């Protein structure tokens, strides 16, 4: 039983690290990903990523009272160039509301280095996993929905990284 358990978790973790490696390896794509001679691969939407999405969440300074940090990067597929001014929508089940409720949603823009960071209420486990949702859905690039999972419900931050391809 334990093996099954670890395998499935491991698989999930491996998925995450493959994603992370994909981003970290942009400097030396030819070495780590020989099949990707054309550069950084675009991020695929994660399964369940779009669940409880609400279109057009407003750009906010902070979601609710804050206390938890969601951060990440947005880059262009191929050359990995940081994408500034991209709108990233964020939502989760937090101590201040359920996933589908409007107050649980907000959006932020990436800075000149393609980085974003938005304070939000503490994420808590919902449907058996503490996780957040992020969306890029502005039209210029292909829509991507992410659903990163926290290693532990006690963590107070979470990261997600986008590599976008033209729509």
């Amino acid at each position, binding site marked *: *039983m334990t093996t*099954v*358990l670890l395998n*499935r*978790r491991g*698989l*999930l973790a491996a998925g995450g690290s493959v994603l992370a490696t994909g981003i970290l390896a942009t400097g030396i794509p030819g070495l780590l990903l020989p099949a990707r001679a054309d550069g950084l691969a675009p991020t695929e939407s*994660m*399964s*369940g*990523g*779009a*669940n*409880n999405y609400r279109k057009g969440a407003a750009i906010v300074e902070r979601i609710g009272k804050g206390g938890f940090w969601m951060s990440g990067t947005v880059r262009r597929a191929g050359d990995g160039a940081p994408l500034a001014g991209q709108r990233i929508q964020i939502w989760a*089940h*937090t*101590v201040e509301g*359920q*996933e*589908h409720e409007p107050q649980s949603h907000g959006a932020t823009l990436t800075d000149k280095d393609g980085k974003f960071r938005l304070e939000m209420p503490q994420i*808590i*486990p*919902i*449907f*058996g*996993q*503490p996780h957040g949702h992020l969306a890029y859905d502005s039209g210029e690039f292909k829509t991507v929905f992410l*659903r990163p*999972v926290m290693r532990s*419900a006690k963590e107070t931050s979470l990261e997600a990284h986008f590599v976008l391809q033209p729509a």
Partner: protein
Amino acid sequence: MTGWRSARVILIWVALALALGVPVALAATSEQLAWRGPVYILAGFAGILALALVLVQPLLIGGYLAPLSAYRGRRAHHWIGGALVLAVVVHVAGLWITSPPDMIDALTYTSPTPFSPFGVTAMWAIFIVALLASLRRRLQLRPRTWRFIHMPLAIVIVLGSVVHCLLIEGTMETVSKAVLCAAVLAATIKVMIDLQVWRKRRTLRGESVVRQ
């Protein structure tokens, strides 16, 4: 000897009450409950109750819960099977109301959560067993045929439920959850060994007792 036997009976019931009661009581004190709506809370506890019933089932059919006779144990097994179906329905319906897209993902085996397919598979196995059990007379299933159908499904139910439960990060306290899951596995393994379910026999022990 009788003293030891009655002490053993009391011990078994106390152990069962603890195995079922402690996880429920600890889940009831979970801080997660503060952030959940009533329907979600109900759905969660229906799931915990379902796991508790999965522990009771092999104990009843194995005749370990004295002073219940084998016949009464089997009757109770049938009724608790029905209660298990009800608990699972409340669990799924409550989660559906809480977050429809997440429940649809789970039911269609497209969920990102690794525990969902185990739970959904166990659910179907429970439904199939309950349906066949209710039609058992009409279909005139012989005990051997019934056992041949029920045993693999029972294994699917037990393993599916245990893995589903262990992988979930929710209101259940981890140690009491693991103990309950271990008890479910132990009870299932014990009853399968004691009744030698893999043997080609005409009757289970309970049936021969009834005939006497």
